[in-house]
């Protein structure tokens, strides 16, 4: 379920920074392999991002899945737009599409693989 307060909080959070990652744990201490994988990709590309630890708030943890119609965590947002979960971020990273997407959306990123 996604109540208005949670929706509003999410809408503010995803615009709070260019790149926002809903994850389990924190960028320094990821608590899930998939979350850690996305943190690794962003760090490797030198992209600053805000990590939001869904383990700290069940309302956000479930609400974000309804918000994006995506059933799992992590979830990556760039300029307020949902990009994907671990699989898609990794696939885009390997094809170079991730760096390209960051650059076209005005986010500095080093070339990837």
């Amino acid at each position, binding site marked *: 379920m996604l109540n208005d307060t949670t929706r509003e909080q999410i809408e503010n959070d995803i615009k709070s920074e260019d790149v926002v990652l809903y994850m389990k744990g924190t960028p320094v201490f990821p608590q899930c392999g*998939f979350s850690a994988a996305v943190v690794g990709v962003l760090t490797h590309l030198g992209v600053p991002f805000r990590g939001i630890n869904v383990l700290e708030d069940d309302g956000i943890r479930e609400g974000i*899945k309804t918000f994006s*119609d*995506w*059933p*799992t965590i992590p979830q990556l947002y760039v300029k307020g737009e*949902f*990009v*994907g*979960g*671990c*699989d*898609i971020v990794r*696939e*885009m990273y390997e094809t170079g599409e991730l760096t390209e997407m960051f650059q076209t959306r005005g986010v500095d990123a080093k070339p990837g693989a």
Partner: protein
Amino acid sequence: MAMQASEIEALIKDAFPDAKIIIEDLRGDGDHYACQVVSSAFAGKSRVQQHQMVYKALGGRMGGELHALALQTSAPDA
């Protein structure tokens, strides 16, 4: 809570009758699978949309009964 590979395959096949499906049980625990799905239904769809289509086919089990599904989707080469 776990799922059989055959169960996943059947659900996906139901939704995408023409699909070529490869499923790999990554850890042998019925909870962590890798899955490749090739179907003409994905043509012209973004990756996010393609994966959402597969998650719908799994009827809400993704993230619950099925903890991890490393998904790769594509349309057949034209």
